[in-house]
């Protein structure tokens, strides 16, 4: 019981860290920093998954934690860093309009997320059930980040952060999806980043920058 109690406390702490990182991502200008934050988010995910696996003694979850470590802490940030270097965009920063307003919208989203997660938390039997709200908040905040950013790379980091939120939701609500599905999702994610990498080069070649305002000429008409 004591062990479980401590684990639950620790998990809540980690979840809070996850939420904090999501907010930090909303306000970061430099792409480089964002990638680092993304890697941190991955490591917290790794730790929390390990903790859940230990507490619930589920070997399957250890594998999925290992997958997180390999994919989200090592491979993806490495690919992103490399891409940035190759594109000569590693010191790019983007002007952000109205950070306080974005933060306020973010706060509203968090409250909304907790409201939405309420019925699920009530039904869940996992020790992590109280963090489902946070997982949903991470998803929504990443979504907000994708909407407010103007650089292709940041939008993609937002996309990946959203996937982190989904993964966290899966561990919180059900101790993770079946292993095969998780492998499939990881594969899709890897392919997605790979394709986006090719895509960045194509965009860069055509427009000489990764700014998304070049990509807003097609309209509904």
């Amino acid at each position, binding site marked *: 019981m004591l062990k479980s109690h401590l684990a639950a406390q620790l998990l809540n702490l980690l979840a809070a860290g996850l939420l904090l990182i999501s907010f930090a991502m909303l306000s970061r200008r430099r792409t480089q920093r964002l990638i680092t934050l993304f890697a941190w988010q991955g490591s917290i995910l790794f730790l929390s998954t390990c903790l859940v696996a230990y507490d619930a003694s589920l070997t*399957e979850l250890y594998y999925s934690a290992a997958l997180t470590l390999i994919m989200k802490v090592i491979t993806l940030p490495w690919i992103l860093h490399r891409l940035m270097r190759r594109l000569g965009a590693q010191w790019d920063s983007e002007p952000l309009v109205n950070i306080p307003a974005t933060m306020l919208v973010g706060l509203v989203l968090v409250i909304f997320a907790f409201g*939405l997660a309420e*019925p*699920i938390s009530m*039904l*869940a039997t996992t020790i992590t059930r109280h963090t489902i709200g946070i997982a949903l908040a991470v*998803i929504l905040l990443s*979504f907000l980040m*994708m909407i407010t950013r103007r650089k*292709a790379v940041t*939008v993609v980091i937002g*996309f990946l952060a*959203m*996937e982190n939120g*989904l993964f966290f*939701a*899966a561990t919180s*609500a*059900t*101790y993770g*999806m*079946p*292993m*095969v*599905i998780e492998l*499939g*999702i990881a*594969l*899709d994610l890897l*392919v*997605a980043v790979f*394709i*986006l990498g*090719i*895509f960045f080069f*194509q*965009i860069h*070649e*055509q*427009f000489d920058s990764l700014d*998304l305002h*070049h*990509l*807003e*000429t*097609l309209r*509904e*008409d």
Partner: protein
Amino acid sequence: MDLLLVLGIPLLATLLLALPLTRRVGAELNAGMSFASFLAVSWLTLRVARGGPMLLWHEQFYVDPFNAFLVELTAFVGFTTAVFSRPYMRTEEHHGRLTPRRKRLYHSMYQLFMASMFVALLTNNMGLLWVAMEGATLSTVLLVSLFRTKASLEAAWKYFILCGVGIAQALFGTLLLYFAAEQTLGRQGMTALLWTHLYAVKADLEPTVLALAFVFLLVGYGTKVGLAPLHNWLPDAHAEGPAPVSAVLSGLLLNVALYAVIRCKVLVEGSIGSVLPGRILMGFGLLSALLGAFFLWRQRDIKRLFAYSSIEHMGIITFAFGLGGPIANFAALLHMTVHSLTKSSLFFTAGHAAQTAGTQRMDGIRGLAAINPAIGWSLMLGSIAILGMPPFGIFASEFLILTTAVHEHPWAAPLLLIALGVAFGGIFIKVQPMIFGDGRAPRLPHSPALLPVFVHLALALTLGIYIPPTLAACYNAAANLIG
């Protein structure tokens, strides 16, 4: 064994066509492999038609009447599109829009796309369905931007981001489904997400969770169906990608995404025991049909025109599934088949017409009947078919949908009629000057492949007059399942 062939052939083709040494025979190999898949799929569906639904590979795959006809349709259109794309891509290469390397990418990704659609249709596992749907998006992103023009890059980016975000919602929905399944079935790992298992216990699934899951699944997969207001990516991706890609996106991918929505709807309706999911589908469907029809009028690009027509038709089909009941479902399934055949044939013709005129802008395409009668007349016939003129199949399905709507939800019938009428006028007025009148243009360097167009239209015509008993039995069984 047959399933191994169905999934193995396109995957093998993906690898083979990616190799540089198949470069010279890429188009032929692509068509040949697609034909082989078609044969394998036909064998599989024949077995299902004879022996009823079957579970394969530790229940991970499931073939029933609902997906059997869709997978057959997918394989067929996949094959004819591969036949069509041979001269089309050669002409593009001739015009200097395509390099041999990109052509190789095209062939390889085309097969990967087919493989992921087969997996999405045949799998029994809702998680695997998600993975395959995402795979289908990923394999087509680079195809939309194949010509590397600025507009095509933008379209592909939009496609990727919108569908990526959409499909992330669907993943959350799947997660909720798993959560609900775990509550009822217990922690079973792989089997808790199997559709057949969920279907067996659908009445015991937690209604609140499933209602929430349905919202996420509908938004997620609905983005890929092109339901308004989530349709933004669709016209751009259809207009800027090569014609064969537009044909398979419109004719096949939209169907597969809608298939996913309907599979989810069956479970949710069973769980919450109300008609709410059906009503939501009806709302989205009507909105898409109306929006698609009205936006048709403002298009200047021939492929955008037909893209909006796809939104309209997917709206009609979604509406019909929302109506429910054996007749509306039957009509929706028929409409799915005929729309897929007709719309892909229209994109084939539109592709050749654009190549002939050297532009996709409709005011630049004039007098097709004079320049190349075959292209002109196939555009005419295709337009007549898509507008739902008798005796084409779309007439039959739209008629059934309308009469059911009048019978059950009289308020919806006028709206549906407005959508049909507006779309009719829009397409008719825009297509007519492209076909008739004077026009002069150089001959295409490679003679166009119009055989697939005529085969598709002949099938669409046949289905309007006579539905083979096997197919009708298939539709009926699927319609009863959907409920």
